[in-house]
């Protein structure tokens, strides 16, 4: 028995998932709407129109992280409810290809949401100019998204096979995402200082990259067992 090329399988799974999202719009609009609404709530709830430093960074990342939970909870639902899991397990494809495809799906979702959410955040809440912070912020977005995607793809697979998936997803994801939140929030806080506080400490990008790498390895090691009976 020969296995199909993993890259072909990943691309096929990714294409199918994106098609499903484009036809149902179950995740992306909800994520975007949640992010913008949360910024509005902070805007009016805190009665401020300009945040900076740690507070600005915390508000941005907590909002993005909570928006990501919406997708983490939904990313395997069609597979579980319509037999996609079984059809995948019955194929000779490497099981980790499903994890990789779901990670890519979550990365794409997060990138799209950030295209909407980050400008909304800048307009509604951020005191310093977004344009100054943006080049250095891109690295934080990439590594932060990667961490969320890795943890989300793993926890989503675990949660969707339980009856309490809506509860289990956030309950398991959030503690695991604390180091990601810590890394990105501390990384971007100096970028949101007004006036700018200077260089970003190298420590937080390294912590984040290390956490992403470790969790990525754990996810690939555990994923096969999650698909087992």
């Amino acid at each position, binding site marked *: 028995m020969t296995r199909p*090329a993993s890259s072909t399988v990943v691309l096929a799974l990714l294409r199918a998932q994106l098609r499903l999202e484009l036809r149902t719009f179950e995740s992306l609009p909800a994520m975007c709407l949640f992010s913008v609404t949360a910024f509005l709530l902070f805007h009016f709830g805190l009665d401020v129109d300009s945040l900076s430093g740690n507070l600005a960074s915390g508000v941005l990342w907590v909002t993005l992280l909570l928006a990501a939970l919406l997708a983490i909870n939904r990313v395997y639902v069609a597979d579980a409810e319509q037999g996609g899991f079984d059809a995948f397990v019955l194929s000779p494809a490497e099981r980790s290809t499903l994890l990789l495809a779901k990670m890519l799906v979550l990365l794409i979702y997060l990138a799209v949401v950030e295209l909407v959410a980050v400008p909304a955040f800048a307009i509604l809440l951020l005191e310093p100019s977004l344009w100054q912070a943006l080049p250095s912020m891109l690295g934080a977005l990439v590594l932060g998204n990667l961490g969320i995607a890795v943890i989300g793809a793993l926890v989503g697979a675990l949660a969707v096979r339980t009856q309490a998936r809506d509860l289990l997803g956030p309950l398991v994801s959030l503690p695991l995402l604390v180091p990601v939140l810590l890394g990105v929030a501390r990384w971007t806080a100096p970028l949101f200082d007004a006036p700018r506080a200077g260089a970003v400490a190298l420590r937080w990008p390294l912590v984040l990259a290390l956490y992403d790498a470790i969790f990525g390895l754990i996810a690939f090691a555990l994923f096969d067992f999650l698909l087992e009976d």
Partner: protein
Amino acid sequence: MSAVALRALTRRYGERTALAELTLSLETGQTLAVLGPNGAGKTTLLRLLATLLRPHDGELEVLGHRLPADGWLVRGRLGLLAHEPMLYRELTVRENLRLQAKLHGVAPARIEELLAAVALDRRGNEPLRTLSRGLVQRAAICRTLLHEPELLLLDEPYANLDPAARQIVEPLIGRSSGRTRVIVSHDPQAAVNEADLVLGLSRGRSVFIAAPAELDDGALARLYE
């Protein structure tokens, strides 16, 4: 050569035993009909053979490989037609089959060949959710046969199919397909008619395993009492 060999196979769900110490052997090219009332363990048996469930006790060999250890060597050589079509409702029939073809490393030409064989080629670009149950069952049959499996595991294969549709799919999944088959059915007489071996299950236990000619007149009736 045995296509399927079970020795004291047992599977439990929590405290409940779904299948208890089942032993049987099915030769390549033969058809096994699995009969029994609801909850007898028929679907559990199919899912064990399909590698979707792990046995708790006993030995299970499919297509010459021990399960669950060699599961990946068997997947791709068997086709499971279950209650659920295992296809995405929002994707078209062709999109679903293209995805399955990639998962199995099958050339796209096979999709058109199968769609034509089940007379679904004209409806292939419609989303699954818009099709009738009978047409969805035909699409599921295409998915099951896409990779030309040696062993067919069929759970109510003719469900939702009208007589004309049954005739269409018969050469693909019926006796004339020449494949080794395990058929679960609630139509005992029809299943017995196309079987080489009949397994009667009740509450997870084997009531009889016999060739159709060896079954006495009341065996089937007693199974469902």
